[in-house]
């Protein structure tokens, strides 16, 4: 028999509609304008751990967007004021209790915001969406490492990371790069131990995990990137945005080298984004929030399928 029924309950689907209304209401009250950008673009992210879905068209390959970030930055460079977008985003092979290849993302940009302002707005928006005040714990990436291992980030050498990762049952550790090991150890051995009953904000990521964040003007090896977790569930990721076109081009190149090293398919860098940065992106901060994850918290479920009308395996 065909399994045609939704994976979410009707109550949870209604809850989603209410959450969407609350998102739009929040941004309307704060004069942030809703925008739309294409879901199928000629370019996509170069980040090695984000896998885009390529779509064949009569034109050269297009990609389902993994985030509307590049397009929204082109709007900002063209003079768009504070803006937000609620859209579907797609990431190949990401399916599990907390992941669905097709998911709903909220992305917004604030001109002139610094790291503290954007972190503050993100946590207060989550409180509004969840309808209750939350305890908020903010600490830097380095502080989190210090709390758990009692040492500095620089002290975490490869043998230490390999040992930690292996003791957690990670197979073939020797094949992983230093960055992949650190990533694994941070997410599996550090993050779970700094969580508390509320939101946990981690900021100041190492340069290797910069993505599109600006380098901290006071500390050259740290970037102005933050992530928000609720009981180890990652809810949002934000940056004070990198506005320098040359640095952005270098990061694209670096991504390309890592992709080659990991044997990943080549994707061309987005030259239109680079041109937009070159013409001038105003100082701004931006955040991507996984709205399905917020809805999971609202509906008190640890399975994303229960908040999606039809999850990946039933779509």
């Amino acid at each position, binding site marked *: 028999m065909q399994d045609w029924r939704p994976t979410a309950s009707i109550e949870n689907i209604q809850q989603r509609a209410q959450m969407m209304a609350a998102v739009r209401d929040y941004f309307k009250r704060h004069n942030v304008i809703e925008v739309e950008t294409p879901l199928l673009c000629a370019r996509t992210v170069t*980040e090695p*751990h*984000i896998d885009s879905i390529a779509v064949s068209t009569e034109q050269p390959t297009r990609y389902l967007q993994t985030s509307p970030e590049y397009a929204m930055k082109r709007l900002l460079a063209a003079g768009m004021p504070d803006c937000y977008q609620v859209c579907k985003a797609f990431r190949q*092979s*990401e*399916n*599990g*209790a*907390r*992941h669905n290849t097709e998911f709903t993302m909220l992305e917004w940009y604030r001109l002139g915001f610094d790291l503290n302002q954007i972190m503050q707005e993100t946590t207060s928006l989550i409180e509004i969406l969840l309808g209750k005040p939350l305890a908020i714990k903010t600490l830097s990436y380095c502080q989190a490492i210090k709390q758990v291992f009692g040492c500095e980030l620089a002290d975490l050498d490869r043998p230490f990371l390999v040992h930690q990762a292996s003791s*957690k*049952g*990670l*197979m*073939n550790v020797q*094949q*992983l790069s230093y960055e*992949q090991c650190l*990533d*694994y150890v*941070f*997410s*599996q051995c550090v993050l779970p131990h700094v969580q508390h009953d509320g939101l946990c904000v981690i900021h100041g990521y190492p340069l290797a*995990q910069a*993505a599109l964040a600006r380098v901290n003007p006071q500390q050259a090896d740290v970037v102005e990137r933050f*992530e928000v977790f609720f009981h180890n569930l*990652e809810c949002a*990721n934000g940056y004070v945005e990198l506005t320098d076109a040359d640095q952005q081009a270098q990061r694209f190149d670096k991504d390309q080298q890592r992709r080659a090293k990991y044997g990943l398919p080549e994707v061309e860098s987005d030259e239109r984004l680079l041109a937009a940065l070159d013409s001038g992106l105003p100082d701004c901060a931006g955040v991507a929030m996984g709205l399905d994850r917020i809805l999971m918290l609202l509906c008190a479920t640890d399975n994303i399928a229960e908040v999606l009308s039809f999850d990946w395996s039933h779509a």
Partner: protein
Amino acid sequence: MANYNTNEFKSGLKIMLDGDPYTIVENEFVKPGKGQAFNRVKVRNLKTGRVVDKTFKSGDSVEGADVMEVDMQYLYSDGEQWHFMDPNSFEQHAADETAVGDAAQWLKEQDICVVTLYNGAPLSVMAPNFVELTITQSDPGIKGDTAQGATKPATLETGAVVKVPLFVEEGEVIRIDTRSGEYTSRVKD
């Protein structure tokens, strides 16, 4: 044997790890937003029964284990080997003491068991959840001893000894839950 990519992982999949066959009990996809994706699995060693946690980088592949669970009829034991037959193919398999393990004490000829074959040879045998066996020896219950839940030992036709209520007598057939090794009821003809 085929290799399995982590995106084919699901519970019940049989894989080889460090030279031993394992079955996946649970599979969880783990991915920090910008970071490497992993599959965290709970796997059970099919030889020892031990459950351990392992994590694979997503996209890695793992060798599949040639393991099948087949319903087979228990034929007889020659003292060293226990002989089973696949009722569909009539193919016979001999299992040694390690493979039969605790199941040995519940096996009665003709019963259907689940035999796990690894590379074509029996790796483990699971007795049916319930078996009906005859009591070959049990002392009569002492009259007047009617304390609630009082039991006495009874030896079964397979040699197993179980605790039975005092009113159960030698020669009777009883039903046993092999998972707990406990008496559940008398079987009336």
